[in-house]
């Protein structure tokens, strides 16, 4: 019996390691690509052992730093849209979590449907409208447009956090003479601060990773990282090492945030529907 279970344990481990190799392999490969000398890019069989070089990171982010502008744009867009969504979604999710009112279900479905709508369907009107009103290629227009996914997402996930705050706590505060908004600001927000931070982090990642809107709406100086990467596909050849170096920098912040989020990852990925 014991022998068999040891065998099963062993095979489970082997299976797990194979699975991990499959899913981590491409990520390790892009890291290799960003560090390897270009001559080893396309050898057969692929080169695994090489002397790592940082010249591509240096080229992309220091001198001449072609990708540095994209990095700054990405930061402005992601911080800007995650911050802007906060006040709007705190108020709305509080109302949905606390009150019973006509149209509550409809409004929740409205937010949900925004999240599932095809982004490309909005893209064409956005492109036409913002160039007409003279806001083409600006951060402001993109940050506003990003609210189409950051606000609905934040509302749905924050609602799940507000639901966990016992209603008695704020009622006690209101007995003490605070009004509803005061109770929200002084009692509910501090208690659910972790939830608000989780929501902010997800909104940041979704904006950071978005590439559909800026593909058409960003301009020469407002391109975020995923769009800027297209510039390395030149007619003279594809600068794969630079693409990899820029990709690694693009991948890093969301990865670190997901690690920091820990058990809240599940809740965020399901818009608050599944909790761990």
């Amino acid at each position: 019996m014991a022998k068999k279970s040891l065998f099963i344990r062993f095979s489970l481990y082997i299976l797990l390691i194979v699975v991990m190799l499959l899913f981590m392999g491409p990520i390790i490969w892009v890291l290799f690509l960003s560090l390897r000398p270009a001559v080893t890019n396309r050898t057969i069989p692929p080169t695994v052992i090489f002397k790592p070089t940082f010249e591509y990171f240096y080229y992309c982010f220091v001198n001449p730093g072609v990708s540095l502008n994209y990095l700054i744009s990405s930061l402005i867009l992601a911080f800007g849209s995650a911050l802007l969504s906060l006040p709007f979604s705190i108020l709305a999710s509080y109302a949905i979590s606390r009150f019973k009112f006509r149209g509550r279900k409809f409004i929740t479905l409205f937010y949900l449907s925004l999240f599932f709508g095809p982004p490309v369907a909005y893209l064409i009107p956005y492109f036409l409208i913002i160039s007409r009103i003279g806001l083409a290629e600006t951060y402001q227009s993109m940050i506003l447009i990003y609210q189409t996914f950051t606000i609905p997402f934040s509302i749905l996930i924050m609602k799940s956090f507000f639901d966990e705050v016992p209603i008695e706590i704020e009622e006690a505060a209101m007995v003490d003479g605070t009004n509803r908004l005061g109770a929200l600001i002084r009692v509910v927000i501090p208690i659910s601060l972790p939830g608000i931070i989780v929501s902010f982090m997800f909104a940041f990642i979704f904006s950071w990773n978005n590439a559909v809107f800026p593909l058409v709406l960003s301009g020469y100086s407002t391109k975020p990282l995923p769009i800027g990467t297209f510039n390395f596909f030149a007619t003279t050849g594809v600068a794969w090492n630079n693409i990899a170096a820029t990709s690694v920098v693009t991948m890093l912040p969301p990865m670190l945030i997901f690690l920091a989020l820990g058990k809240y990852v599940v809740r965020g990925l399901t818009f608050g529907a599944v909790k761990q």
Partner: protein
Amino acid sequence: MSKLKHRFLPYLFILPSILILVPVIIYPLGFSLYNSFQHWNLQISPVSQGFVGFTNYINTFKDLTFTQSFINTFKLSVPVVIIEFVIGLGIALLFNENIKGGNIFRAMLIMPITIAPMITGFLFRYLYYKNGLISYLLLLIGVQIPKEGILGNPITAFWGIAFTDIWQWTPFFAIILFAGLQSISVEIIEAAQIDGASFFRLFWYITLPNLKFVILITVMIRFMQTFNLFDIIQAETMGGPGTATRTLSYNLYYEGLVNYNIGYSLAIAWIMIFTIMIIINIFVNFTLKKEEL
């Protein structure tokens, strides 16, 4: 939790979020609905060139590229989501065996989900190259690669895109279904085991019914995302070779922002929105009916 009744306050709290979404949702939707009934080619005129009724909508059915992209969208999203779900559930069950170091494995498994899909597309484009890693490994196990490369052949390009999506989003199912598995109470499982239930009976009669809600939610989210898939296609094939990997999203983008057939592309947009509304309705009736929204 008991809910409060209040006449105006909830609307007052919701109002700001609606007001900020009006210029970015309601107005563009109105704009696109209106112009989907107009003849408008941006290369010819900066404003629409007149009302044409349902012509744009009727033309989509005569357009082979459109019908192909419609079929492609389902041909891609249905099998991809099924494969992701099945493998993801398998991995979740593997994690559920309480393996030592499971936390580290799970943290590693989350990594593909965190990457911007556009970047994933670039990554796999490199792996699919003629002497890229995937092509090399396929040759090693004796699988013949088309002369024009994986992304150069209509059939393999399609599956190349599908495989990229499967790689990125199978962990999504694995992580969330694992959380669902963990929430099934140990007592139920132990009771069933004492009664002598086999692994498969346990899985069929205890595990799956308890996971039903989580499964429906995850399948809905993933189905909508693959249905709208755009980034990976833009990064890997740009809809090619020819029009082989154009989905509804990509065809819409191409008609509107490459060919500048604004009126026609907005008709496509509305057909897509209607299709999605029907699908969401089916899912919502399945999942959220009993849930208190």
